[in-house]
Structures are given as structure tokens and as C-alpha cells.
């Protein structure tokens, strides 16, 4: 009896001291944080892209804001006009980004599917080892992984030393500053992001479905095409978005592994910002990148809705 009484006292005490907070206030804090540090900055980019460049600190005048004279609103389209005037300088990187991000997305998909399927169908220790092998690189620096790829592909790198050693080549093979080196870099950085959503859907496929299909005389490829692939669709879509979207804006990989032929949007934006110090043009490029990226997202949402209706 004594113990019970004490517990009740503790509970009464806790009730009395617990602050009465409305539950909605829990949501206000992260909402306010993300609005201030994610949504408002995107508006800020739009404002600067419609503003004008100048010499000084900071090197721009935004399209709207607060000055000594009060609120002002004076957008102009100079930066966008500049992008159009030099459209070939900016649309080639846009094309390169799309090409290299899409290509690496496909390579990631081809590599990730068997890995995920293997992990999903294996049991116990094998599954755990496969998953840890995929997760491990995700937890280590992508800069250092890209650096390791440089060491492999360099004219003085391991592959070339090996070829020279075997006597297969007289002169080193230039593997850097090529499409293949950029693909290699994007795959080593983003492959885990493709495996994780794929594994998550594949592991949930009911085994009895495969048994039923086999019993009804379906071949392996029929089973794959009619069961595995359709059921993996949400995972494929999620994985492709997780790889394609960030890869489009990638700066570090084309900078370290690519050459002039692999100039990508992220690198152009970086150069406009850090080298030319033309912040309005850099902002306009960011807006352009976001507009381009919204196309696949909106298209997928549209396709998803149509699939659900039929």
C-alpha cells in the first residue's frame, strides 16, 4: 500500500509540474525553422535573380526589400536576359547535367536492382551483411570517395599503373575528364540512395505470390515482369528521384572528375558566384535549375494520379 501511495504522489507531482502546452506549439517550432531557413531563402534567390548586379558589398541590389527610404519593389529581368543572350553557354551545361544525371540514374538502377533483390531474398546474416555493405559508404564522406576515384582513374593512377605493368599500354590511358569518370563518381556517391528505397519495397513482396506464379507455370522472366517489377515501382520512382535531382545540381563530381565536356549546372552556378561574383546571374541559374527539376516531379505526380484512377 505504501508503495502504491508513493507512486500516486509522484504522478500527482508530475501532473502539477508538467507545463500545459498546446500540442500545436510542438509543430510551430520546426515549421517556423523550415520557413525561415528553407522557404524564405528560396524567395530570397528569386528576389536577387530579379535584382541587379553592382560593385560593392554585397555585390547585388535585390528586386525588393527595405532600404533607408523604406520598402522598395523594382524587379528587372536583366539576369534572365543575359542567360538568354548567352544561351549556348548556359544551355549546354543544362543539357550535360540532364544527360549525366539521367545516365547515372539508369546505371544506379541497373546495379541497385540485383543488390536489393539479393538482400530482400537472402535471410539473416547474408541479408545483414549485404545491407551493411550498402549502408557503410553512405556514412562516409562523398568527397573522399570521389577522391578515391581520382586515384583510380588518374593518368598516374592504379588502373594505368596496372596496364603499364602488364605491358598492355605504352602511354597512360586518359580516363579522367570523360563522361565515364563522372558516371563513376555519381554512382559511387548515389548508389546507396537507390538501393534503400528499392530494398524497402522488394522486401515486402509476399513470397506466396512467387510460388503461385511458379505453380501456374510462369517462367522466371514472366514472374519478374509481372510481379517483381510492378510491385517495385514506388521504390524505383523514389530511388530515381533521390539520385536524379541532387545529381543534376552536383558541383563536386564534375569539378574533380569532369572536364570542359562535362560542365554541369552546379559548376556553372559555382563559377558565376565565386569567380565572376555575379550573384544575380547565379541566382537566376538556381531558379532555372529548380524550374527544370520541377518538370520530372510534376510529371511523376501526374502519372501517379492517373495510375491510381485507372
Amino acid at each position, binding site marked *: 500500500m505504501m508503495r502504491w501511495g508513493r507512486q500516486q504522489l509522484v*504522478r500527482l507531482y508530475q*501532473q502539477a509540474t*508538467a*507545463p*500545459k*502546452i498546446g500540442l500545436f506549439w*510542438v*509543430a510551430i*517550432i*520546426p515549421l517556423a*525553422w*523550415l520557413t525561415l*531557413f*528553407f*522557404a524564405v*531563402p*528560396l524567395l*530570397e*534567390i528569386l528576389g*536577387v535573380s530579379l535584382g541587379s548586379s553592382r560593385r560593392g558589398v554585397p555585390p547585388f541590389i535585390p528586386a525588393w*526589400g*527595405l532600404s533607408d527610404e523604406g520598402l522598395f519593389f523594382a524587379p528587372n529581368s536583366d539576369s534572365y536576359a543575359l542567360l538568354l543572350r548567352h544561351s549556348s553557354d548556359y544551355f549546354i551545361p543544362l543539357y550535360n547535367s540532364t544527360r549525366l544525371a539521367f545516365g547515372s540514374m539508369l546505371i544506379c538502377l541497373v*546495379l541497385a*536492382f*540485383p*543488390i536489393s*533483390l539479393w538482400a530482400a*531474398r*537472402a535471410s539473416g546474416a547474408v541479408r*545483414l551483411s549485404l545491407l551493411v555493405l550498402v549502408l*557503410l559508404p553512405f*556514412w*562516409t*564522406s562523398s*568527397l*573522399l570517395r570521389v577522391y*578515391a576515384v581520382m*586515384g*583510380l582513374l*588518374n593518368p598516374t*593512377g*592504379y588502373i594505368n*599503373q596496372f596496364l603499364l605493368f602488364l605491358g598492355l599500354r605504352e602511354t597512360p590511358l586518359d580516363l579522367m575528364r570523360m563522361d565515364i569518370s563522372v558516371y563513376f563518381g555519381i554512382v559511387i556517391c548515389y*548508389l546507396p540512395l537507390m538501393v534503400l528505397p528499392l530494398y524497402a519495397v522488394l*522486401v*515486402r513482396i509476399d513470397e506466396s505470390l512467387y510460388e503461385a506464379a*511458379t505453380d501456374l507455370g510462369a517462367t*522466371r522472366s514472366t514472374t519478374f515482369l509481372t510481379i517483381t517489377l510492378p510491385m517495385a515501382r514506388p521504390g524505383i520512382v523514389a530511388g530515381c528521384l533521390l539520385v536524379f535531382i*541532387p545529381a*543534376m545540381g*552536383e*558541383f*563536386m563530381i564534375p569539378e*574533380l572528375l569532369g572536364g570542359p565536356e562535362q560542365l554541369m*549546372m552546379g559548376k556553372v*552556378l559555382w563559377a558565376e558566384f565565386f569567380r565572376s561574383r555575379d550573384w544575380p546571374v*547565379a*541566382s537566376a541559374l*538556381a531558379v532555372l535549375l529548380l524550374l527544370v*527539376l520541377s518538370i520530372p516531379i510534376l510529371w511523376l505526380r501526374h502519372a501517379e494520379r492517373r495510375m491510381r484512377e485507372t
Partner: protein
Amino acid sequence: MMRSSLPFAAKIIAIIGFAILYVPVTLMIIYSFNAGKLTSVWSGFSTKWYVALSQNDQLLSALFLSIIIAAGAATLSLVLGTLMALSLERIGRFRLRWLLAFLGLAPLVMPEVVTGLSLLLLFIGMEALFGWPSGRGIDTIMIAHATFGMCFVSVIIQARLADFDNSLEEAAADLGAGPLTVFYTVTLPVIAPALIAGWLLAFTLSFDDLVIASFVSGPGSSTLPITVFSSVRLGVTPEVNAIATLIISIASLAVLVASLFMSRLILYGHRSPETDTDT
């Protein structure tokens, strides 16, 4: 069991995938113990690059700065991410739920150059308006990292919360526990493993970030990736091999130890094996 077997060709492709992930890093680790200055010609075992590393003050101070920023950003991410996950999973429908759900996912796929540039413009705008932050340094990098870190933390905790139906929490509330008591005595112990995983992930993401930190750092606040990047640009050197090996080994060791402890969580996602079989 026929369904368990994977076609031979598929296994070969999977192994190629693993080779891409592991061969370059393994060679880098081996050659960090190379005595010679040439990074790809083996000329004997040596730890001299590690000794050289321990005398490189610039790298060491960058490492120290990165650890401080990562710890701060991870802690901030943990608090904000937990609040976000609780809001999305536990407090029911509220009017701006869609907005929070959207704002919580968008930073996960936003290209880093756009995030970095937008935050820099915000900090400059805020400085002009309120005089804060005056200049950019540790605080601005921490805020930037916490903003995407909290979204990763929230995803992990949401998965954990979705697994446990809230009858326990409701029971506690029925018995008269206040919201905070319910949180401390019921919810917190349940999500503890997810909290640890989330903090570690936010720490690593901050510790490894190059692009966003480059935009929002000021003079004198060069993090380790910024410092390493400037020397990587000039080519492959044994000293960078050594620091890369150290960082990758420590991170890998931590993940291996953690995954031994959390093998159930990794194997079955957010579901326990019992619930996994009946869905």
C-alpha cells in the same frame, strides 16, 4: 527454395556494384601506407604520411572546427527533427500539416548549390535588416547543416513512431499524465534507438558537407572538407590519402559497431519481424 535463388547474371551485376563502391576506397587505404611520394607506385610500407599529418596544424584545426560544428548541428537537428516527427505522427491533423510535410521532404532532394546560395543570401539579408548574424562562421554553418539534418532525423524517427501504435501513449494520458510526462516516460524510450541513429546521421552529414559550408562559411572558418577539397583539387597526394583513410576508417568502424547493436532495425526496417510477416 527456388524463389530465394537469384540468377547468376544478377549476382554478377550486384558484385560489380559492390566493387564500384569498395575498390577505389580500398586501394586508397592501402596506398596511404606507401613509403613513396608517387601515390600509385608501391615502394614499401610506411606510416610517415600519418606522422606528417599529425604535424599539419591547418588540417588539425580544420578537423577540430568540423567536429564542433557537426556536434552542434547534430544536436540542433535532433531537437528540431524530433519535434517535427512528433508533429507529423502524433498530434493528429492540423491545418498546416501538408506544409510541414512538404518542407520536411524538399531539403532532402534540393541540390546543394541551391541550398547553399539561398542560405547565404538569407544571412546577408538578415544581417542588413537586424544586424545578425554579423559575418559568417561557425553559427551560420551550424544553422545551415541543422536545416537539412533535421529532415533526415525526422524521417528516421517518423519510421520508428509509425511502428508503435499510440495506445501506450493514450493509456498514459488517460491515467492522467501530462503531454511532457507521456513524452518522457513512454515516447522517448521507444524512439531512443532512432534518436541515436538520427544524431549520428546528422553528425556525419554535417561533418562531410563541402558545398553548403563553402557558401555559408566566412574567412577563418574553413571546415575539414573545405580544407581537404582545396588540396584535392591539386591532385592525389599521400597525405590526403592518410587523412581520408583515418576519416573513412573511424566512420566505418562506428557504423559497423552500431549495426551490430541495431541489426534488427536494419534488417526489418521500422517493423519488428513479427509485424512484418502479417502485413
